[in-house]
């Protein structure tokens, strides 16, 4: 299994990770090796097998719709890189 430079660039955009040009050849090799390992799966006969998402086949638990948490905005924002007036600051999105 090989993965192309174009695939790696596309996946890096989806994953929001900036890649430098010089990182790509090593990634082609490493990701290609990992995908070759993973390709062993194609040999398995999985006809009529249900996918397993959770080892105990548990379903999502629901709780009563009651307010149980207090507002801790100040504690949470105290560790944020940049805030102002209770809002998280990011670079300007709309000019």
């Amino acid at each position, binding site marked *: 299994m090989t*993965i192309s430079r174009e*695939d*790696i660039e*596309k*996946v*890096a955009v*989806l*994953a*929001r*990770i*900036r*890649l*430098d040009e010089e990182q790509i050849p090593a*990634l082609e090799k*490493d*990701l290609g*090796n*990992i*995908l*070759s*390992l*993973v*390709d*062993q*799966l*194609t*040999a*398995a006969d*999985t006809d009529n*097998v*249900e*996918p*397993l*998402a*959770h*080892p*105990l086949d*548990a379903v*999502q*638990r629901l*709780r009563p719709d009651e307010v149980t948490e207090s507002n*801790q905005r100040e*504690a*949470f924002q*105290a*560790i*944020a*890189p*940049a805030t102002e007036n209770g809002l*998280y600051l*990011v*670079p*300007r*999105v709309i000019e």
Partner: protein
Amino acid sequence: MHNKSVAELSRQLEGGKISSVELTREFLDRIKAEDSQYNSFITITEDQAMADAKAADEQRAAGNASPWTGVPFAHKDIFCTNGVTTTAGSKMLANFVPPYDATVAANFRTAGAVCLGKTNMDEFAMGSSNESSFYGPVTNPWGLSGSGKRVPGGSSGGSAAAVAARLVPAATATDTGGSIRQPAALCGITGLKPTYGRVSRYGMIAFASSLDQGGTMARTAEDNALMLNIMAGFDPKDSTSADRAVPDYTATLNEPLKGLRIGLPKEYFSDQLSPAMEEQVRNAVREYEKLGATVKEVSLPHANLAIAAYYVIAPAEASANLSRFDGVRYGYRCEDPQDLSDLYTRTRAEGFGSEVKRRILVGTYALSAGYFDAYYLKAQKVRRLIQQDFINAFKDVDVLMSPVSPSPAFVQGEKTSDPVTMYLEDIFTIAVNLAGVPAMSVPAGFVDGLPVGLQIIGNYFDEARLLNTAHQFQQVTDWHQKLPQ
């Protein structure tokens, strides 16, 4: 004192032979004097520990103590600790001070245990050698006199090395594909990965949520039982927490093993296992026969597909979990972002190490349009087959036994050039996580002066039997008492 088990230290404290302040001071002094050669701690919480020790002594004096009151231990740096930096071994979280406790951290706090600090680990628990940590590799206390420093295993390598070097009597750990059992084996200590859902994942920094499980590391099975007693249980804050009663895991440690049915999965005694390792594991199984156990060969026919399934499912879940690290709410943020896209992409490029990035990219690829069915869905189907293997095996036997790792601790740098070589380190441990069953690593001998672990795998929620099985072995062997020179 530092060579004593948690159970022994607890009795010393109970009998007034020593105070928690004295004990905590002794272990802190050991960490300060010795950890420069292991790098097993990322953060040492000296002032908090001494204050907690004083409070524990007061609690004991007031006749209000649990077995853990005043006993020192450490947390893997993946468990959020209120007011104490929690890094997950990453630059991304170098400045992250959680405003809350993980449920596991709260459990130890409630029990009165004294946390000495946070232990080193592979970045976001992704690794089998502790070499992917942003805070530098950990050195195994075993094999220091040999040809090159050896890895402690990973990802819980800091916890394993700290316990093996007797810098703490016990440490928390997590296991997604072998991250408790493999380092426990390589460092010659005892570790337990419980059933998926047995220990709360709340506040445990997520890697692969359907596989991650918190667990225990100490020198003896009895100490693992003492840890699990306070860690296990239902937690409404974890949506996959198991709502089942928790037994007293120490109560059944002394049950006799006569009639115990042991299965040896033939796929785990393959040519990937060195003959010297196999001999140690087979010797351990013979000890069990002497204790009255019966042994038969069993088969896990899909075991050879476990690594492939894991390296789709774990990276896929990781790519989703780690999307939260965006430089906006907490953690690392790149300098001077030009726009929102630059903020995200540069923060993540600079904040994550290379193994974490590889796994995010593989996971994103496996989940992307056109590949989802071929990779992710296929891997989940294979996961069902692997689970069925275990269900079938446990119809005939009580526990499975196998090696933990294909070889003992390897030299630092030996397996870092090709990620796939490192992934094969977990060949005997990964299927357990896919199935969600519990498993232990128990010291069972040495090869070339390096510890060998025996893996004991149990049926769902059968931790009490695993601990009993390990404890009885430790009554007739002394591998767990051997100390690195």
